[in-house]
């Protein structure tokens, strides 16, 4: 048989590697800044652009999509060519993928600090960037499927399956969750409202972890771990079961992010059951990885690549055990909204993703530059700094999370909350926040050591841009395209395989979401829940822009400790006009769903101007710019019209008179501020809109408690 000569494209891999290292360091620096702000609020440099609410999404987007994303592309482009014995389908598509992705990152790095955000976690980027992401992602997919079709290897190795699942699922998740109605350039309202929006968001959010941070990296593990250990994977059969059961189960587990919220109990229970089931495939994969090293543990002692990989796979095992445990309702009741969750995701992020990336980089770069690693000792130092960093990061946050949660729930002998002031529970855990920043700092220093080591390694060799290879072409005989076990047939038909993968993930999404969308027509509207006034709507958009949702939830769970602290628990019917929902996932500050009417307007005024002056010891940053910048009233018309299109019942033609109502309400608030404490403020100032929104929050059901104590009542 004729042997074909071709070459592997290393140049594209090199570019993705450079991007991942640079953005890794940038993303971690932003994370460290945010971590320091939590005990030293002045560290926001007193500008709007670097407040916690804006840079927290910058950090998450940078590390997920820039650091991990670029590493994923580097690893996939390198391993796929070799596993399929062919160059990528199209060099042009590879480069469109690279530059397109970097432009998206640039757009994110500019737009997030400017306050352009949808507020949906890990999907904060506004609609023009969302469209760009969809296009570039499809480019990546075409390039990948094209490569698979022109392959010289009959079967697709298990790593390729994980890459395919990653491509199709992320495409579906991204498109469904990003459905929004543009109001203007860089501003849109989520297509879904309230409970539905929450369900779609966490179906997305959970599976972004599953299919962006997990499946591609499991694919990489199945390629790079055997390569680094120079022995085949422990059990290929296990890897098949691992793959199908993981993608089948993962997609269902999203509702575990919404336990005890207003999401239907049915969906909550489904999320819990599938989360528990996830332990099996996750641990199957972890054991498969670790057992690959059987008989090679002596190498782990000396080879930093294997050290990084072993800790990565172990961290994967820990995080995927902890995750299902956190999905149990009794554990979730304690852990949700606390730093426990932050610790949990960082075991996954720093341990699993970070360490696997470091291991792969230390392995790939000497190969691509035809040399040896510059310093094994430095890599070992990096390993220990990183490991200590993870420990110093996670342990304090576990202590902080559990401490704070128990303080929230503590009642004294008289039956009152022991720590009535939320701030007491924050001040208590500040030392833990400091330790966490030290952990993050150690991890970052390690990343700097790696950068130096990798640069020195590259300099000591010469880059092999096109690595020569040869393989016989794939013969398309009848014998090879037919027969054999059904799975081996599948592996020869990438398009069919892709379709089946889509079906596996869509079944979960559809069965989970359809009933929840069906209830939309069945949810009895609470009669006194009314659409936001134009001023409140502006205030809500300011709340979104400043990222308040990063620290404040709007979801009072039905616990005595919460109804005592915040007020009546939250009902599904209260959120029907919330595009997007703002339930939040972390309480660095108190819940705000029932904050309306709790304090006078002047309290909010002074509090936003200088939180620490109103609440001594508060770690909330000041928002002085809200007092000088005016409400953008030109947008009012577009906002009202967009909301009406989404089903909010504003009267026809209301958009043209909305600004009159807005000014009327603003004047009232300005007057009240003057009457309360002789505060002189322009009615057009943004703070007035924000006060209007905060004072409205959760007050609808207070309006007529006698007739509408429970939303079901109105339907009877």
């Amino acid at each position, binding site marked *: 048989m004729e042997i074909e000569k071709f070459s592997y494209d290393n140049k594209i891999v090199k570019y993705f590697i450079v991007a991942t290292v640079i953005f890794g360091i940038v993303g971690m620096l932003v994370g460290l800044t945010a971590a320091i702000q939590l005990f030293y609020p002045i560290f926001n440099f007193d500008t709007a652009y670097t407040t916690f609410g804006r840079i927290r999404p910058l950090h998450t987007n940078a590390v997920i999509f820039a650091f991990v994303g670029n590493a994923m592309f580097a690893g996939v482009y390198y391993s796929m060519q*070799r*596993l399929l014995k062919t160059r990528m389908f199209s060099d042009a598509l590879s480069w469109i993928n690279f530059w397109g992705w970097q432009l998206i990152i640039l757009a994110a790095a500019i737009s997030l600090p400017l306050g352009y955000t949808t507020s949906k976690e890990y999907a904060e980027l506004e609609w023009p960037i969302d469209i760009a992401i969809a296009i570039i992602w499809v480019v990546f997919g075409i390039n990948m499927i094209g490569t698979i079709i022109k392959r010289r290897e009959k079967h697709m190795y*298990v790593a390729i399956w994980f890459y395919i699942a990653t491509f199709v699922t992320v495409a579906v998740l991204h498109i469904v969750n990003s459905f929004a109605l543009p109001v203007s350039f860089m501003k849109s309202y989520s297509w879904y409202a309230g409970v539905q929006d929450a369900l779609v968001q966490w179906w997305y959010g959970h599976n972004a972890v599953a299919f962006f941070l997990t499946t591609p990296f499991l694919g990489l593990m199945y390629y790079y771990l055997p390569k680094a250990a*120079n022995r085949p994977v422990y059990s*290929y059969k296990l890897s098949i079961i691992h793959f199908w059961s993981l993608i089948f189960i993962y997609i269902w587990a999203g509702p575990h992010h919404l336990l005890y919220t207003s999401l239907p109990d049915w969906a909550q229970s489904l999320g819990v059951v599938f989360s528990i089931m996830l332990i099996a495939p996750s641990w199957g994969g972890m054991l498969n990885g670790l057992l690959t090293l059987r008989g090679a543990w002596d190498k782990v002692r000396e080879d930093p690549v294997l050290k990084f990989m072993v800790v990565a796979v172990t961290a994967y095992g820990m995080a995927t055990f902890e995750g299902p445990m956190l999905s149990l309702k009794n554990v979730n009741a304690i852990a949700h909204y606390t730093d426990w969750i932050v610790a949990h995701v960082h075991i996954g992020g720093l341990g699993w993703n970070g360490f696997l990336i470091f291991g792969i980089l230390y392995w790939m770069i000497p190969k691509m530059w035809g040399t040896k690693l510059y310093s094994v000792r430095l890599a070992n130092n990096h390993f220990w700094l990183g490991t200590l960093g993870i420990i110093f990061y996670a342990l304090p946050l576990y202590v902080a999370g559990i401490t704070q949660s128990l303080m929230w729930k503590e009642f004294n002998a008289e039956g009152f909350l022991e720590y009535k002031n939320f701030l007491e529970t924050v001040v208590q855990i500040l030392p833990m926040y400091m330790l966490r920043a030290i952990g993050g700092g150690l991890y970052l220093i390690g990343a700097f050591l790696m950068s130096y080591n990798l640069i020195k390694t590259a300099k000591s060799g010469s880059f092999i841009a096109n690595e020569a290879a040869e393989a016989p072409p794939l013969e398309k005989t009848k014998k090879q395209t037919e027969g054999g076990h059904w799975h081996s047939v599948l592996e020869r038909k990438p398009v069919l395989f892709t379709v089946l993968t889509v079906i596996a993930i869509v079944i979960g999404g559809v*069965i989970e979401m359809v*009933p929840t969308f069906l209830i939309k027509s069945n949810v009895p509207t609470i009669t006194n829940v009314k659409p936001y006034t134009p001023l409140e709507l502006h205030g809500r958009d300011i709340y979104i822009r400043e990222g308040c949702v990063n620290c404040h939830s709007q979801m009072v769970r039905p616990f005595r400790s919460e109804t005592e602290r915040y007020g009546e628990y939250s009902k*599904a019917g209260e959120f029907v006009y919330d595009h997007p929902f703002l339930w939040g996932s972390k309480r660095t500050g108190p819940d705000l769903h029932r904050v309306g009417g709790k304090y006078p307007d002047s309290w909010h005024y002074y509090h936003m101007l200088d939180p620490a002056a109103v609440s001594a010891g508060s770690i909330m940053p000041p928002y002085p710019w809200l007092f000088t910048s005016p409400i953008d009233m030109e947008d009012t018309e577009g906002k009202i019209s967009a909301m009406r299109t989404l089903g909010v019942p504003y009267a026809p033609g209301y958009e043209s008179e909305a600004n009159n109502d807005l000014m009327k309400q603003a004047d009232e608030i300005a007057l009240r501020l003057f009457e309360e404490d002789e505060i002189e403020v322009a009615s057009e100032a943004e703070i007035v809109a924000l006060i209007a929104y905060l004072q409205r929050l959760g007050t609808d059901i207070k309006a007529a408690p006698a007739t509408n104590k429970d939303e079901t009542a109105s339907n009877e």
Partner: protein
Amino acid sequence: MFKHYFEQIHNVAVWPIISLSIFFIFFLCLILWVWTADKGYINGMKQLPLESDEDQSDYQLKPEES
């Protein structure tokens, strides 16, 4: 309280049963297939990442003792 809404959806109780059945049947078939899969094929697949590369020893800290 949500029970009330769901009672209004036709046969809602069947949804979780369907989902569980789909997964369970698929999983059983998968296990059965893996159990009976051809050994040669499995071993071939296992070796796939390793065979594509001749200069395997590039990144070895010490010679492989086999």
